[in-house]
């Protein structure tokens, strides 16, 4: 099993949702009250639940693009025992068919990759895919001690320089480093957990728990409480769209303002990355120099 744990857990389902108060049921109830559609004549409960799922996915996407910390996970993996078609080392993110740890469909994007066990530890450099394949050459001396990665499809592709022993690099008389059985630690952003959309009698997310009893952890939405107002506004807008009613200006404004804030955060983050890159080009760097593992 290349992926061994996510946040130390062995099942995606064990990840705890982010809200402290808002359950799926409470969000649905609030949105239906605000749109005056509590009586399910035109808007059915299932519709509202789908609206909630769609809105959570959208907000979580913005938050992860802005690299807000909420959906960050650390994934522990080991290098696959065979080489990738590209001739590179890799980690299969579908985890060899173990659906409990199938990160390929659960990832938003991968942020950093580290090697974190054994005597050799360190950050791996993110390279472009063509860079990885280009440098995968027996004559590569300059990057003999480089460890680089890229995320492509269901795989995390890894390049280890010719001086590092791995699944692909074997047969040399001696290597400076050996990462064959090292843990690869991946800092990634995940997708949010969503309502399972099962009927309330079998659902573990949508239980219509009355406020007098304590909801179980799976009933909470996977969104920080401070963004739940935005979620409710978005669900409200979807409901009104569904019944062909104009969305009130105030609701539209709230949604636009909140998403504009998130977009600004994304832009600021992007600018930071660009500045870092420019500094790097001029030799001013906070990044690990080439060759470091």
């Amino acid at each position, binding site marked *: 099993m290349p992926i061994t744990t996510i946040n130390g857990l062995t099942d995606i389902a064990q990840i705890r949702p982010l809200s402290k108060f808002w359950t799926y049921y409470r969000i649905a109830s609030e949105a239906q009250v605000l749109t005056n559609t509590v*009586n*399910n*004549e035109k808007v059915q409960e*299932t*519709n509202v639940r789908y609206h909630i799922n769609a809105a959570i996915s959208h907000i979580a996407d913005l938050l992860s693009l802005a690299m807000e910390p909420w959906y960050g996970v650390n994934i522990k993996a080991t290098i696959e025992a065979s080489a990738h078609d590209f001739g590179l080392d890799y980690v299969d993110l579908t985890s060899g068919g173990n659906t409990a740890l199938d990160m390929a469909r659960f990832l938003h994007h991968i942020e950093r990759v580290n090697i974190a066990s054994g005597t050799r530890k360190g950050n791996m450099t993110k390279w472009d895919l063509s860079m990885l394949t280009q440098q995968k050459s027996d004559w590569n001396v300059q990057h003999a001690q480089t460890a680089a990665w890229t995320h492509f499809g269901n795989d995390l592709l890894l390049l280890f320089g010719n001086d590092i022993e791995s699944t692909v690099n074997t047969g040399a008389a001696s290597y400076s480093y050996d990462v064959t059985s090292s843990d690869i630690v991946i800092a990634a952003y995940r997708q949010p957990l969503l309502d399972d959309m099962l*009927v309330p009698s079998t659902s573990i997310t949508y239980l219509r728990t009355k406020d007098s009893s304590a909801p179980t952890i799976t009933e909470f939405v996977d969104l920080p409480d401070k963004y739940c107002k935005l979620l409710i506004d978005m669900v409200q807008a979807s409901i009104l769209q569904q019944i062909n009613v104009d969305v009130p200006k105030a609701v539209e404004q709230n949604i636009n303002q909140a998403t504009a804030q998130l977009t600004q955060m994304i832009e600021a983050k992007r600018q930071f990355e660009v500045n870092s890159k420019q500094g790097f080009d001029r030799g001013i760097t906070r990044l690990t120099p080439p060759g470091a593992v």
Partner: protein
Amino acid sequence: MRIWEAHKALSLALGDTVNFLDANGLDATIISPPNSMPDGVWLLHSLRNSQIYRAMLKVYNEIIMSVAPLDRQIAGSVIEKIMPNTILTETQTIALNNSAQTMALDSKIIYLTKVYCRNENNDVYPIPIKNGIEVNALLNTRNVQNPDAFAYLFNVELGYDVSILHIYDFKNEIDGMTAYISFIKYPRNPAIAIDNSNPDYNWNSELDIEEILIPKVLSYAKLYALQEHQDMELLPALQMELISPNQQGG
């Protein structure tokens, strides 16, 4: 208003005479209802029955037609407002078969106002009422979003005092619950109230319509009677009376 009262009122309004005297020459209606409905000079009581019944249907027809363009929910609440005492509620236990149930209701329904279910904790589950077109749309295989349970009133063969209600519940949510079905049904025809020994429905029974609508029923009955007799002198005045806004809704 009782049936014999309506007959008396209609006869008098038409200038007809009705013999309600008992054996002692007293007005029998003051003491007790008549054992049989006397005929008038102009109109037989069976004709008056027909006119009264047609007038009742006309009043219902006006109400239904006025709410027809409205959203079903609003229409239901308007009808419950206009005729609060005419609304009947039937209860049935939900026993789903393949996510659906066909219920036979012992009434010929004019308008279904609301349907809801209750479980043993008295939690209420409102059941939207849909028409045939909407039902087709809700059963659309191309849509994976199963709707909440909904009800559909199906027509039955003419001549049966039964209405068929279909309930669909793809979530199996309301199975075993008690369904409460509220509706107005067709009024009872006064012509059936022949046998005065029938304790359920006789000359002394209330006219089977919301009491506040009776003035309008009598006006229409009078119109039909005069039309039948082609009494053109009285007609224009009566037509004015029916059209006048004060008469709307009784």
